[in-house]
């Protein structure tokens, strides 16, 4: 059986962990082995965070460069930072909204998300097989909540068939079990939002 290797990345506090846990739960419900690893500790305070998630048989939760089937990025510069993990022709699903680190503000530099998304676009069709860029401000405005970016990105990945044997229905089932009922509708909408 082959392993599906997923990398989720972003900035501390963006909800990467919940997305990775939902996918794991969905995989387990299908009797698939799952391993994952994430950054915990200092890095959480405004630092870059990254989760590895591997579905199927393997010994280590960590992923080699060039072996990720998909990168789910919550922040464009973080997506670019982990790009070397992507296998040739792999999938990238990313938010376009830049999070400005204090250091950038200190140096008076204006870090632009567009520079990152333009760079990703330049690799599309070659190094990156499939690229989905989510207009986050628009998405969150349409959905009326600032908290569901993780579901928008995860939904796009699942509906595009990029999570191996785990599909959108599996994610929904896991979500129903993990998330309070009053948030189901919003999350379902978010999962269906992005076009892939």
């Amino acid at each position, binding site marked *: 059986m082959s392993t599906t290797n997923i990398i989720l990345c972003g*900035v501390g506090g963006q909800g990467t962990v919940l997305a990775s*846990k939902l996918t*794991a*739960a969905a995989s*387990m419900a299908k009797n698939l*082995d*799952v*391993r*994952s*690893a*994430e*950054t*915990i*500790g*200092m*890095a*959480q*305070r*405004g*630092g*870059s965070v990254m989760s590895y998630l591997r579905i199927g048989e*393997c*010994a*280590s*939760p*960590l*992923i*080699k*460069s*060039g*072996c990720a089937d998909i990168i789910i990025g919550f922040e464009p*510069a973080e997506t*670019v*930072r982990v*790009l*070397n993990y*992507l*296998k*040739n022709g792999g999938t990238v699903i990313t938010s376009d909204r830049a999070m*400005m*680190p*204090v*250091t*950038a*503000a*200190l140096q*008076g*530099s*204006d*870090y632009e998300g567009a*520079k*990152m998304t333009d*760079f990703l676009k330049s*690799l599309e069709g070659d*190094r990156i097989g499939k690229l989905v860029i989510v207009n986050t401000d628009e998405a969150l405005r349409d959905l009326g909540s*600032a908290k569901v970016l993780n579901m928008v990105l995860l939904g796009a990945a699942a509906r595009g068939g990029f999570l191996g044997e785990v599909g959108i229905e599996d994610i929904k089932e896991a979500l129903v079990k993990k998330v309070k009922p009053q948030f189901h509708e919003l999350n379902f909408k978010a999962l269906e939002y992005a076009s892939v």
Partner: protein
Amino acid sequence: MHKEFVMGNEAIGKACMAAGVQVVAGYPGTPSTEVLETIAKENDGSIYVEWSVNEKAALEVAAGASYSGARTLVTMKQVGLNVASDPLMSLEYIGVEGGMVVLVADDPGPISSQTEQDTRTFAEYSKLPCFDPSDAKEAYDMIFEAYELSEKYKTPVFMRPTTRVCHSYQSIDVRDYAEYEDHRPDGFVKDSSRWVIFPKLSYVNHAKIEERNAGLSDEFSSNVRNAVTAGTVRKGIVAQGISYANVKDILDEASAQGRDVPSLLKISTPFPFPEKLACDFLKSVDEVLVIEELDPYIERHLVYVCGRAGLNVSIKGKITGDVAPSGENLPDLVQKYISGFMGWESASSDAVKTPELPVRPPVLCAGCPHRASFYAVKKAMKGKETIFAGDIGCYTLGNAMPLDMVDTCLCMGAGLGIAQGVGRVKPDTKCFAFVGDSTFFASAITGVVNAVYNQADMTLIVLDNSTTAMTGHQPHPGTGHTMMGEFTDKIDIENILRGIGVGTVVRQDPFKLDEAVETVKRVADEPGVKAIIFEAPCAVLFKPETPYEIDLDKCVDCKMCIREIGCPGVVLKDGRVAIDEALCNGCGLCSQICPCGAIGKAVKE
């Protein structure tokens, strides 16, 4: 049994519960913290769980309970073992009655620690048996064996996972509640010939320990966890922990591609080292590569085994420079080591050259009270000859620009002594020691006693944010609640300082900037040992207040707010200063810095 998706640390906690642990004590420290927290969370009240004041206290509490026949668990990170080492070294000579597992989490990298010390080496030094799991499942299963071994040989046993095992998740089989063991003991049985350490007893027990460990080495040689996977050539790899998992994936992949692969030996019980097993393995190969993290522990033992058995096998690893001496063995690096060892050409995907990326070093949160405290001291001491001895906690991040307020940081509690020492060399320096509240209780009180007794001239700044923030917000003696869910009297830091004889002790709200600056100026000018307790809760613990906003008509773009305090809530948007309302928690520090009064509380529409 049923399946659960658990973190390595949760697996260890759950296994201890299933093995009938009765007393659990520890001190928080990444990456060990979630073990004790898992037990506290799932506890039905039948297990006694405490965050002790430090690791030494934790070990001693557990020792008493183990003397009484209870199964116990002590948890800490690797540097915590340094603090607990005094009681532990002696405890090995005395032994235990109820099984005792000493969980010490090591941190290759290091990712969030001061050192890259190796508990396997400590195990050898202290003579305690040691288990080294390679994933959450192995950690879970090992705990039961560890307790059995501990009780069979009446010795504490080390369980030492590393960060990647502690913090990785895996779907594993765990016991149902009905399968939990019950080991309720009778209590302490008096026997001073057993429990009181004297030179004579140590002499006798030392001999017994050496004999036992020689036997244990043989026992470990037939332990199935130290698994051998046969290869197709006369080459071998020996690995442990997460390095083993990374090696295994790479060899499985190579095998599937039809390549020749080396034999693989996993060492899960590093001390006493399974010499017979290692010797048999070495006889099957001509060349060995050891892939391990931290010390070249296995490598040294293999060289030793070769020497004793007269084997002519080349052993490669850290000592020979074939494996990096420090840092983690991440999969890419392991691939490189193996490819080099086996003579495989490296097939890699195209490396992408990325545009310049923003760096994101960890910073104090928006609204963190430590920022305000540091800034007040900085302003008050501007132009003076100073030393700001820092310590370990979130407040170590006060070193970052633009605050730049941490001149030294060594280990928990050390700042007090360092400030005193600097003052001994140059007495006209204004010496400050900054210490967090949890660190104060854990290991700074002796430093204050030392300063008062020896008539030092220094200012102690206690950064009291009512929690142990850095490690994930654990309670401590000053917070008034325990891991058993009880509310207790808070131990008052001011009373402690006065009791020790610190003459001036002032409590101050750091967010009242002008007042705080005046307090620092006044107190620091007094002779002898004096203290300021900056009191304001950690910003993560409370619901943010109304965020602030910038009146762009008043703002003159001087960027003082950004340059002075470096709060992540103050950002640049389209070239102008702005407040990120999602991050701002309304502490108001920036509004007291703005020279134009341009920053005020946001008005709700």
